[in-house]
């Protein structure tokens, strides 16, 4: 194109009007330096309103960008509680999973059968509602990948079954014993499921099962609390949490509680009649949260009663043993989110609910007079650090190893560590009195190789694993799972991998 400028004098050349395009089609004629796009098609530049000259007095010359408008979300938000319900939903069955042929159920016979060690026993279908009521299942435990919920009969479970058998058996030396255990173990080692197995065995043996599925809820400041008048130092009741505990207990144990009658007189509950069942008694606390703590105390007194009060002998039945499980113990060993009136943090042991369950760990006084079991598990997924608890558990380990509390090897809190004396007091050795067993520490580890094999075969039979399960492969998985940690095994088992050749799982072939 010819230049519109004269090269000699740099003045614009006149162009014949006919050559110029008409002004109706193009508004501006410019040349574009580096663009190949026709400039005339570009949008006319807008006047810049935010030019510096228009700035007001004492306005900064900073770069101002227009804020992006938040995109309006037209979708209706989920109803109140819906998201939480989805999060906490527990699915116990998967119709896509294969039914495992010849799968045995947990029963009073199978739970002590050593030959079944390593096999997965189904939880009885009739019991699932009870287990749900005591919140024994937790979300994300992998129940939803199998046709029906089942648990491995590992060594610890067999030992547990034998304890149940002994305590509710006929042997006078063992009957009515109280077993106290703190259950620890690495992450995924099956502590919560161990409690679930205990609850299931308790239901099978017609025990009363009382659970605290999450110790955190009592100290996280999410449930109401009120001081007990006249208590010094102030102690607090948690009416709604107690009411929830009663609800769980009533729903899960209604059959046992219905068969037992009120046999004692209780302060604060004058209108009780001897014809009332324990279920009626417990239900008093459901409607009125203010009554729930006295009602729970009354229910506890009834369950631990060995003989009726005078004048109430009518139809007294001996009480069954009681199972108490608590999950997430370390939350009860740190400070709570509750505040006292002077704005100091409430110590968890000042909450009477917590104090009640912790006092059961002491074996110097009779607690569960009709026998029973106390299983308190620590958690690793939601675990506040509590130095005092660590020291307490170390002391228990040392005692179990035969270290005397007076010996210099006995673990003690470090100087200036500010360990909580109330927590340490809890783990001090107490002598066993009568049938009250001393507090033991049980550490859950991994499964053995044989148990691992049984567990993985269950995956294969459910159609999840398409592998030829042999000794070598099982051994490999056992090592991969950190020595048979069951949570890791579950991850390995549920990970569907495409094998080179589709082989039917044949458990007998090596």
């Amino acid at each position: 194109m010819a230049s519109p400028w004269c090269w000699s004098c740099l003045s614009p050349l006149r162009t014949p009007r006919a050559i110029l395009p008409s002004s109706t089609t193009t508004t501006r004629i410019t040349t574009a330096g580096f663009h190949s796009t026709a400039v005339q098609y570009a949008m006319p530049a807008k006047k810049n309103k935010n030019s510096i000259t228009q700035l007001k007095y004492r306005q900064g010359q900073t770069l101002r960008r227009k804020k992006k408008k938040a995109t309006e979300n037209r979708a209706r938000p989920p109803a109140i509680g819906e998201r939480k319900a989805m999060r906490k939903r527990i699915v116990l069955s998967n119709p896509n999973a294969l039914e495992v042929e010849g799968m045995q159920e947990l029963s009073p016979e199978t739970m002590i059968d050593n030959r079944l060690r390593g096999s997965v026993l189904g939880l009885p279908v009739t019991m699932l509602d009870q287990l749900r009521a005591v919140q024994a299942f937790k979300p994300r435990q992998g129940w939803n990948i199998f046709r029906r919920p089942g648990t491995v009969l590992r060594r610890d479970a067999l030992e547990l079954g034998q304890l149940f058998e002994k305590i509710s058996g006929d042997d006078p030396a063992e009957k009515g014993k109280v077993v106290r255990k703190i259950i620890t173990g690495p992450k995924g080692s099956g502590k919560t499921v161990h409690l679930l197995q205990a609850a299931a065995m308790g239901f099978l043996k017609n025990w009363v099962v009382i659970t605290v599925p999450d110790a955190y809820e009592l100290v996280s400041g999410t449930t109401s609390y009120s001081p007990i008048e006249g208590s010094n130092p102030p102690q607090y009741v948690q009416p709604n949490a107690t009411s929830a505990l009663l609800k769980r207990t009533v729903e899960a144990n209604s059959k046992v509680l219905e068969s037992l009658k009120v046999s004692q007189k209780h302060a604060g509950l004058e209108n009780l009649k001897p014809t009332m069942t324990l279920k009626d008694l417990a239900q008093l606390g459901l409607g009125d949260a203010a009554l729930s703590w006295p009602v729970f105390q009354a229910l506890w007194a009834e369950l631990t009663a060995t003989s009726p009060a005078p004048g109430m002998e009518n139809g007294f039945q001996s009480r069954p043993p009681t199972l108490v499980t608590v999950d997430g113990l370390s939350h009860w060993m740190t400070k709570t989110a509750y505040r006292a009136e002077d704005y100091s943090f409430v110590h968890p042991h000042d909450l009477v609910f917590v104090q009640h369950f912790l006092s059961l760990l002491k074996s110097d006084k009779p607690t569960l007079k009709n026998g029973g079991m106390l299983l308190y598990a620590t958690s690793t997924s939601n675990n506040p650090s509590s130095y005092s608890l660590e020291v307490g558990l170390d002391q228990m380990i040392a005692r179990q190893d035969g270290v005397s509390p007076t010996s210099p090897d006995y673990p003690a809190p470090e100087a200036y560590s500010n360990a909580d004396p109330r927590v340490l007091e809890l783990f001090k050795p107490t002598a066993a009195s009568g049938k009250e067993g001393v507090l033991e520490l049980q550490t859950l580890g991994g499964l053995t190789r044989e148990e691992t094999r049984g567990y993985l075969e269950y995956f294969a039979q459910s159609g999840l694993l398409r592998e030829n399960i042999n000794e070598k492969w099982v051994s490999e998985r056992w090592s991969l799972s950190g020595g048979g940690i069951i949570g890791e095994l579950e991850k390995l088992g549920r990970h569907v991998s495409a094998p080179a050749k589709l082989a039917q799982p044949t458990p007998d072939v090596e």
Partner: protein
Amino acid sequence: MVFILGVNFPERNLLKKSLQSFFGIGNDTSSRLLARFNIHPTCRVGELANKQVLDLTAVLSEMKIENDLRREVLNDIKRLKETGTYRGRRHALGLPVRGQRTRTQIKTPVKLNRMERRL
């Protein structure tokens, strides 16, 4: 709906947040109020017993909050201006009062510090 100090709060609201909606009550004061009446930190307005509502209202009405507090703060600024102090002058000029630089970042004093100061 629950009346606390003449204000109507929906029952679903958190009590702590509702208390903080009063001018002069922040995180600390509201926490202390809750602790004083043994109310748990995640309590909703609807969960309060009648007595607790009355107690809270009684305490709040004795505190210097809302218009009383606003008036006090404005009076303090006015006193500074009237006595001709440097701080008072800075308040009146719409400039930062506490020795901040004025080259940039003084939007807040420009917005707030003026002769007829509002809160």
